[in-house]
């Protein structure tokens, strides 16, 4: 697969993911003003140890110009698929970090992590487009982190007796604070189903790194990955994960197909 195509498709998929996040953040910006739970006037206590000039800058940004920040990110997102400019990617990294900072570190957790992972990979690749090794390492960083995201998630589950028995999945669906649909909540009364579902997920996640040894299975694993993320959205409402991870797949396909 030509590297240029991989980077181009990564940029397109990342732009789609960021665009959806940006639309949501524009709406959310209307709900985090004064007298709301996320009012900056209350949160700024958490950065009281910052130098005064930084505190003033953050007040300026978050009190009056948060929507300008979101709009700036929106403009950069539109440019992203058209250019491999390091400035655009740097701008997206900065705006993403500043938006997460506004919410005490992360807004959505996993999708923020993967978004920045892909951005950093693209940033490395953009540092010197005439250096094929640098371009390659940037994509491999994305591929590596994508692999780890599934593998580590699988390992921490399989080490837990409650996951091995199916009890953890049952507990999450039945008692978690996520808005699980009633139909799916009824499934927890089927212990065999919970057991099988838990092991399918764990086995798939733990064997994910094997696609680096047998690349012909990468599309099969990614098909399962897409179904997995859609299942998480249907069960728990986590929509951003679908597109954030999708943006890393071109780099993963490229990574496993290389000769090492």
């Amino acid at each position: 697969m030509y590297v240029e195509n991989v980077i181009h498709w990564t940029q397109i998929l990342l732009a789609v993911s960021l665009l959806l996040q940006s639309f949501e953040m524009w709406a959310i910006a209307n709900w985090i003003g004064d007298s709301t739970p996320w009012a900056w006037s209350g949160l700024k206590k958490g950065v009281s140890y910052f130098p005064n000039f930084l505190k003033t800058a953050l007040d300026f940004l978050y009190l009056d110009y948060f929507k300008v920040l979101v709009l700036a990110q929106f403009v950069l997102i539109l440019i992203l698929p058209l250019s491999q400019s390091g400035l655009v990617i740097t701008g997206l990294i900065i705006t993403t970090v500043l938006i997460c900072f506004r919410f005490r570190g992360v807004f959505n957790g996993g999708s923020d992590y993967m978004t920045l992972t892909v951005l950093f990979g693209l940033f490395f690749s953009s540092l010197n487009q005439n250096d094929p090794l640098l371009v390659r390492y940037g994509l491999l960083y994305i591929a590596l982190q994508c692999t780890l995201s599934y593998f580590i998630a699988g390992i921490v589950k399989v080490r837990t007796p409650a996951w091995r028995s199916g009890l953890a999945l049952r507990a999450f669906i039945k008692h978690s604070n996520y808005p699980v649909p009633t139909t799916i909540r009824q499934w927890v009364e089927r212990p065999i189903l919970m057991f099988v579902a838990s092991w399918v997920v764990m086995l798939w996640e733990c064997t994910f790194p094997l696609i680096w040894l047998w690349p012909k299975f990468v599309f099969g694993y990614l098909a399962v990955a897409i179904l997995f993320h859609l299942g998480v959205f249907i069960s728990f409402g986590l929509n951003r994960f679908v597109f954030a991870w999708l943006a890393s797949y071109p780099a993963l396909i490229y990574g496993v197909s290389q000769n090492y």
Partner: protein
Amino acid sequence: MLKIFLAVLIISFFISAKLPRILNSPLLKQFRVLFPSWRFFESLTPIPKVYYRISRDGVSFLNWQEFQFNEGPRQWYHLFYNPMANLRLTYRVQIEQFLNDVAELDCYSENFHKSLISYQIVSTFLKQELQLRYRQDLKFYQFKIGVLEFSEHALSARPHWTESLVSPEYEV
């Protein structure tokens, strides 16, 4: 190339495994988005729960009831656009954060919770939600935060409720 790849794999695995301890610094916590953690649904961790009760006359309180986020049925377009659900997710996270903050406090005083930003977010959010639901009926409210704990080894375990905080009675 393979050696470099294996080295990066091992280092990244180590960092991800040790991440909770690395991020004890308040500054690093604010920038934790830069340190990816892939430990999703890691274990049967205690599940935070919030219960509340209201008073319509300012004299007597109704029974405690579990606070449930009011979410309508999931639609296909929520896959692409669901800002309120994602904002509500942040409140869920802050409830968990509050319990972590309480556990990290070195000393206990009667009003310790008021110093916590996570408590401020949670209490303001609850006030806002309860005002929307009960409107003029709401005169006073009170809430409590705790966790449902599960036995890791019992196949049919019933969760055990452990209370962490009962808030003061707030007048609206």
